[in-house]
């Protein structure tokens, strides 16, 4: 069943303004948090088991604990560069409840002792950006940001930075480079951002949803937060349901929810006469699940990890039996080829190579060895680069070829799609 914790008031008018937000209990959590000790907040977040909602699922409290105690200024960055194909939860959160994000950020900044934070918004999000900008101005006007917030003596400044539309800037070090005014390229790790991040200072990068969820942890306490979800994946999460379902959209469900229920109950099932073929459970970078697997899967970090895929950003893409997998892989490979930053060789050359291989099959020029080659190339791109974009490109390629090999082989042998029957070779000439 859909539960509404984060999204409780999202449907109410005026929730995006400070008045509407305060009427519904907004900024009360901030007042509560400012009375707490920063370390207690960190411990509370640790105890809640809140995991990063951006994709990697790293425990937020633990991340905050990595900051060194050397008296240097720390930075808090909000990652609102939501570029993962299939994901659009952050956009909703920023459009409907910008103050929730700002409140969560001030609490988090207070917890880690940061005097300055940035919201890095995806370049294409003009409208959400305008709303967050307005909310930020309201927060400043009401003394919620700036010097001596609510008389607590805590100073904090917040700023918005708009990306230029690069997928790679959603990677935390890529985002830091971009924010520093450099080319948006991930930085070599170690040193990790928590030690040397923005401008060489300790930096924490959190997703929009994670920071918003901090308000819930403060409001209800860690124990109450843990009531939802599973042991290792507590809380609720927004899932962006898309693809061949009747009602695509953002749905907040507790972690551990059954994937098939999300599709059939929340999403209203597939269109009549269509059959489920596959599901990508966590954004395009996750490995694809076939029908049998998706019927068994539950939406939590550990179950999907067991199935050799990931929860990622929570973008559930449903694929029914009218789709050609070769075609789909072509789209994905084009995306990753286009978005590779070009720094590390395996990714720079590998993404292009994979696209060429898939396009070769699509144009009817493919050979049977090419299918194996896709897998080999993808395997050799995994884990050999600075950031995870290479893996993100390789995972779909590997899983598509592994799970839907018959479609690829059919395409190579017949020169046309098994599903659509279109002969691309003829189309191209």
């Amino acid at each position, binding site marked *: 069943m859909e539960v509404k914790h984060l999204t409780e008031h999202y449907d109410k008018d005026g929730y995006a303004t400070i008045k509407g937000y305060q009427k519904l209990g907004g900024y009360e959590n901030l007042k509560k948090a400012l009375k707490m000790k920063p370390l207690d907040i960190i411990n509370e977040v640790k105890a809640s088991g809140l995991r990063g909602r951006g994709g990697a699922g790293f425990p937020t409290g633990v991340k905050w604990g990595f900051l060194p105690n050397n008296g240097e200024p720390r930075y808090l960055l909000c990652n609102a560069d939501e570029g993962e194909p299939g994901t659009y939860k952050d956009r909703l959160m920023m459009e409907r409840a910008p103050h929730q994000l700002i409140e969560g950020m001030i609490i988090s900044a207070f917890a880690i002792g940061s005097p300055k934070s940035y919201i890095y918004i995806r370049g294409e999000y003009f409208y959400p950006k305008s709303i967050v900008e307005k909310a930020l101005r309201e927060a400043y006007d009401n003394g919620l940001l700036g010097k001596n917030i609510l008389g607590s003596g805590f100073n904090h400044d917040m700023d918005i930075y708009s990306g230029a539309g*690069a997928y*790679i800037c959603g990677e935390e070090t890529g985002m830091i480079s971009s924010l520093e005014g450099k*080319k948006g390229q991930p930085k*070599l790790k*170690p040193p990790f951002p928590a030690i040397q991040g923005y401008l060489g200072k300790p930096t924490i990068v959190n997703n929009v949803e994670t920071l918003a969820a901090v308000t819930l942890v403060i409001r209800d306490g860690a124990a109450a937060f843990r009531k939802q979800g599973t042991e290792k994946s507590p809380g609720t999460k927004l899932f962006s349901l898309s693809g061949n379902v009747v009602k695509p959209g953002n749905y907040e469900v507790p972690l551990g929810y059954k994937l098939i229920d999300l599709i059939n109950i929340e999403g209203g099932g597939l269109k009549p006469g269509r059959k489920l073929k596959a599901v990508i459970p966590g954004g395009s970078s996750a490995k694809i699940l076939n029908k049998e697997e998706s019927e068994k899967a539950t939406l939590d970090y550990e179950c999907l990890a067991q199935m050799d895929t990931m929860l990622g950003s929570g973008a559930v893409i449903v694929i029914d039996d009218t789709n050609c997998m070769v075609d789909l892989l072509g789209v994905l490979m084009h995306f990753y*080829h*286009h*978005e*590779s*930053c*070009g*720094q*590390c*060789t*395996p990714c*720079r*050359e*590998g*993404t*292009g*190579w994979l696209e*060429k*291989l898939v396009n*070769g099959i699509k144009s009817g020029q493919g*050979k049977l060895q*090419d299918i194996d*080659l896709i897998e*080999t190339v993808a395997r*050799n791109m995994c*884990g*050999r*680069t*600075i950031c995870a974009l290479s893996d993100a490109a390789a995972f779909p390629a590997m899983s598509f070829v592994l799970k839907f090999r018959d479609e690829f082989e059919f395409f190579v042998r017949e020169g046309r799609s098994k599903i659509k029957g279109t002969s691309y070779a003829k189309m191209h000439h």
Partner: protein
Amino acid sequence: MPKCTINGKEIEVKDGTTIMEAFYQKEVPIAHYCYHPGLSIAGVCRLCMVEIEGMPRTQIACNTKITEGMKISNVSDKAKDSVKWALDFHLINHPLDCPICDQAGECGLQEQYMHFGKYEPEMGQGKVKKRKVVDLGERVVLDTERCILCSRCVRFTDEVSKTNELGIFNRGDRSEVGTFQDKPLNNNYSVNTVDICPVGALTAKDFRFKQRVWLLKNRESICTGCSTGCNVNVYFNKGGVYRLKPKYNSDVNGHWMCDKGRDTYKHLNVEARLTKGKKTEEGKTTECDAGELAKQTAQLIEKIKKEGGGDSIGLIVTAQYSNEEYAAMFELFKIKLGSNNVFYWINNQKTFEAFDGLLYRGDKNPNTKGLLRALSKCKFDQTWDKLEEKIKAKQLKIVVVLGPENQEVYPDISEKLKLLNSVDNVVWLTTNQVLGTELLKSCWQIPVKSTIEKSGTYINFKGLEQKIKPVTNIVSGALTLTEAAALFAGDEIPFDSKTPVKGERVWNEFFHHRGDL
């Protein structure tokens, strides 16, 4: 001091050493392109993959610090497979134009392929096409297709020359190295980017297509362009010297050298050199053997000494010769000829202290310190002013000039020649033909050997003595100053100073495997 094992051998390294540095220290070969000891770590080529026991994935050696008990291998199957694939990714879009690529023979891709690769290509698709033969200013040509985007050149302009001309534009496999709005790359260190380019993407205009590198030998020497005394490798063959490349010396030049220094080989080649002794008397020029001319000079000096005493013989010195040569010449003048008339010819005193902050110094002589030491040892302290006086007073009957090897940095030569016009006999020892000598009453030019043809000690700006050995023989008839001094004194040249020099061949990977081509 953590201990670790590299390929089964236990070693101890300093705290904070990276695996790559340990490989360098122990001289274990490891594949890499983007790592350069003189630059920051980029970690982008992903070629230096090593297997570390206990880690699920292979790691890059350049950015992994060694911890106690680490077991590292770059020869295990897993590491080799990683390297093989990293190399394959490099090669898939690299054009196969090795035949016309200037880097062939010293190319990182060729070398690593011979070491770690040797397999059939798996790429069957078309390669990405990019711009070729891009003019990057006065000295460098860029081929973006050959570039493997290791970012060494970009980091060089960022970190070493601090001029920030180069950058990587665009993304993914469309990335290209270039300059903003195609502005030229015209700093004094631009050719270093060519040296550190592991492939043929950046080539030097000066060396471009002149010679294949496997037909060149190299030997170390020093650059004579200024008083820094950068250590260089001289690349030469029987056709002469083709280029200079910096040789690492942490005390002098690090990994780099300036572009002006790279030009100093040009006046060493035989086309620019004085190959025979030249006698110019009353406008008529006759050629003869250098040794013969030196013997005639000896007779002339003898005669003048008898007539007018030692002080009617003068010596003009420039700071472009070695300590040993100064010692021999000064001994001849001070003891054998009994002359105190040694004059120091300073070319550009005003800019002596100029310094560009990296390597290039205002003092354009390689051995100013050495000359000053030799002069003070013999208590010679006269300069041109004194010489002018003495010439006007007709005190000098003969002047021996140890002319500059690099005449470009002595712009006042013609002016000084006018002054010498009133001296009866001028003996000019020089490596290159001196223009305007026909204006003199009598000028004997004796060819002498250049820096790369002789052994000697040079003292650089900070007092560091650098001993060099002969690199090659370009003008075999030329004399060193030591030999000239011996001949002037009426002695014979000892035989061994004329032993021909043999260069070492650069045995590179390309050569080892040329049977496989």
